[in-house]
């Protein structure tokens, strides 16, 4: 009978449960959620792909200047934020978006595009 008072007082309190899809919790500022990518800053150094513990990040078109963007497989991702930490240009970072459920596996792969810089001019080659 030790909890009876607590129980009866709960009858007149708001339930602790959140009616989730209808009311949502504000995520804390530092939450590690979905990735975001800035193609202009990226230099295609492939550090994020090398450091990813679950090999979730792939460079499209290979590393280096010819890189045309990233794919991030959220099904593999651990949300450890190591890619953001290691990126020298802050081109990839994690947002606080946390609703990541998808119907098909393929929809869980983020596809980021980047226009690769124009091929180096001959003048630069000489220099």
């Amino acid at each position: 009978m030790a909890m009876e008072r607590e129980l009866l007082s709960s009858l007149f309190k708001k339930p602790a449960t959140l009616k989730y899809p209808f009311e949502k919790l504000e995520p804390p500022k530092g939450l590690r959620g979905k990735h975001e990518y800035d193609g202009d800053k990226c230099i295609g150094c492939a550090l994020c792909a090398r450091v990813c513990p679950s090999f979730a990040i792939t460079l499209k078109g290979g590393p280096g200047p010819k890189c045309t963007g990233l794919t991030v497989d959220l099904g593999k991702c651990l949300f450890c934020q190591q890619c953001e930490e290691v990126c020298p240009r802050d081109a990839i970072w994690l947002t606080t978006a946390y609703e990541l459920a998808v119907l098909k596996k393929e929809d869980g792969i983020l596809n980021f595009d980047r226009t690769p810089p124009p091929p180096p001019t001959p003048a630069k080659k000489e220099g």
Partner: protein
Amino acid sequence: MSDRQFVIPIGPQHPALKEPTSFYFTVDGEVVVDVEPRIGYNHRGIEKAMEVRNYIQNLYITERVCGICSNAHQTAYTGAVEEAGGIEIPERAKYIRVLFHELERIHSHLLWVGVAAHEIGFDTMFYYVWRDRELVMDLLEEISGNRVNYAIPTVGGVRRDISKDNFPRWHKVLDALAERTNYYIKVASTEQTILDRAIGVGYLSKEDMIRLSGVGPNARCSGVPCDTRKTAPYLLYDEIPFEHIYVDNGDVLGQVLVRVLETLEAVKICKWVLDNIPEGEIAVKFNPMQKLPEGEAVYIVEAQRGELIHYTISDGRNMPYRHKIRAPTLGNIPSLVERLKGGYIADIPITLAGIDPCFSCTDRMVFYDEGKDRSWVWDEEQLRRYGLEWYKK
């Protein structure tokens, strides 16, 4: 086996087990005569997987050995790697590591109290405890950005700093946690139905516990003073004032007592950390491709479930030659088997839950299907067809 005895399989899938494992109970009426444990259902090959990843990648693999003691595994892993590589971490980083170690202990112990209440059919207490556990979960999420896998310790320090502005609020949360824990201590010690199910259940004496090398709260409830934080202090634990908690009940009530009292101590330690944390750097630089010198190190920490050992061997590359993890649950299985013998069927769930088993931690090595020589995934249709064919038999 006489004709009055029969074997009850519990697991791999059973409501009393939160993770797959299997126990074969030989019972005589309602009394358990013999127990045979069988683990390995959750074997993921983590130790082997760690041998092909660099030290930074392994950080996140070790974290996923277990969901509840993720931070304890990381603390032990980083400790071992730093010891093997001779890396000194900044003072402030140690404080933040201790803070997480203890916050995680609070959340894990509260989780256990809820689960134990559920195992003896007291779902109401389970709901309430888990509701109040959200306080510390929210705190952890706020600081680290994730509810379970905090990813805070890194080789050479910690990854996120904590801001002084939040300390007054966090103090309040910790006070609330202590108050609620005290309330649950009161409930557990006055509610007759709980006492009926806890006193004398799964008793094991101190001598047997030492003989079977039990660890953690499971051993401390039998009166073995084995808290690594006291016997072999790591990080800051030689400076922090806190009680070494052990009781000599030896039964489930003792396990409850050890855990709730440790929760209160953990709250105290967290408050101490917030009061005493020095300013300064939080990490020394460690490059993901950095190589470690040859060497080996053993690092033992007190995870929530007991003593946790990480043993790493480095051969001079940027990935470990061998990394051995022994999670507390494996060390507790021999004593658990002793505890179960002679008990009632009805007491199996609470005795099993009493050691706070975590079979994900326990099974962690290799997966490979040799005979088939391939891996495959079944889709829904194939599964359905298989089910129909199975039932036609």
